[in-house]
């Protein structure tokens, strides 16, 4: 833990090995992948080395980050303006694709019918294809209801691309959940009809949901 306590410490042998491996890797690596690549080092030790490294790099122009349980180095976000000019190759998403992606991310797993009921329009097949091709969403099985519709969920690449450690980091997800805005309309309607809006009772309910979401 000495490394983790001080960002200035000389990196230890394992830290150096983890650092070099992640630096050379073509893609992000899980703790398990690192552990096996390094010849079976205890995952706990690898995790310790990652934490220490993360701290050592915190003030640098390169950061060590975890995205969806996978670790990689990337440039510090505050330097974006320096690097952006040569490297503008981010996929431009249509508004429809952007919305569909957000709906899947905040509601996953979710069927196409559920996406459409939120958006109020049909989703063209191309929209989901674009998101699949980008590697941001994937088929996540079928919902066990009549018709067994296909359901969609996000991928680790999605978290990676948007700089999210996990889905819990989705902007505002806790507040949305607390406000019941991730619940289907029918459910929300029932909840709303049950309470007399002007009564203090309603306030209580809100408080309660906040706690749950936090």
């Amino acid at each position, binding site marked *: 833990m000495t490394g983790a306590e001080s960002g200035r410490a000389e990196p230890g042998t394992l830290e150096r090995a983890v650092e070099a491996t992640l630096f050379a890797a073509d893609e992000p690596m899980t703790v398990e992948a690192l552990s096996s690549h390094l010849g079976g080092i205890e995952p706990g030790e690898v995790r310790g080395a990652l934490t220490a490294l993360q701290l050592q790099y915190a003030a640098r122009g390169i950061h060590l980050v975890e995205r969806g349980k996978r670790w990689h180095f990337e440039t510090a976000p505050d330097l974006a303006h320096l690097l*952006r000019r040569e490297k503008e190759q*981010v996929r431009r998403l249509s508004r429809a694709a952007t919305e569909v992606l957000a709906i899947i991310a905040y509601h996953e797993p979710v069927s196409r019918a559920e996406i459409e009921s*939120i958006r109020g329009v049909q989703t063209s097949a191309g929209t989901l294809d674009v998101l699949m091709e980008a590697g941001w969403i994937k088929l996540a099985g079928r919902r066990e209801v009549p018709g067994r519709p296909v359901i969609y969920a996000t991928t680790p690449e999605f978290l990676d691309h948007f*700089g999210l450690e996990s889905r819990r980091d*989705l*902007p505002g997800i806790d507040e*949305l959940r607390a406000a019941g805005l991730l619940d289907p309309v029918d459910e929300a309607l029932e909840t709303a*009809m049950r309470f007399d809006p002007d009564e203090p009772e309603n306030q209580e309910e809100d408080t309660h949901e906040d706690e749950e979401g936090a």
Partner: protein
Amino acid sequence: MSAGLQGADQPFMFPPPDPAKPDTSALYLELDGWEGPLDLLLDLARRQKVDLRQISILALVDQYLTYIERAGEMRLELAADYLVMAAWLAYLKSALLLPKEEQEDPSPEELALRLQLRLQRLGAMREAAARLMGRDRTGRDVFLRGAPEGLRTDRKTVWRSDMFALIQAYGQVKARTAPRIYHVANRPVMTLDSALERVSAMLGVTLEWMEIRDFLPPHASPELKRSALASSFVAALELARRGRAELDQESAFAPLRIRRLKEGAAS
């Protein structure tokens, strides 16, 4: 009224959307930008108030109907679902204005609330999408290593075997490919040649009559004795034919006797 149905006094949790635009004819130009009636309604609602929980559904219905009407005046072709929504909203408006006791189930308040909830949800997702897209994105704001060396895993097969497998394999090769020598076991027989030799040799010992049984090997097995007897008998006949011995038998099955003939005596 509808605004009050869901905790109107709860603070709104999102940063305010774009500054409310005035409800002007600028809408016409954006016709292609709408993704269906709900989208249009959401935009109209946003122009009305910051908080979607406090919008007036009646005012919203009016704005929508006005918009559709103007589109008609401009002879813009509207997709059918915009017209369906317009019809439904017109019905909702009249129901909301009717005295309560004449209302059907579901009540117009419930329908209005449902619309409001849908708009809230679409609005929430639209904001979430904007915030998501505004994050530091890989390849736009943060960058991965430009030229990673890459990790290579070479699969190497480590072969394993053991001594027993080795010698067993060799044994089986040997067993499989050893030249096969077939040899017939020595059967207990006396050949005619050896009987001839034997009987001739014995005849040389004496000129007296001898029983043919005496020529048999004394310690032979019963099988060999039988064979020897037969061979010796044939040998005796052969010797008699050559004129070297004479045979004598007193009666059938009596002992067969043999005696050497003197040289030249046979003629």
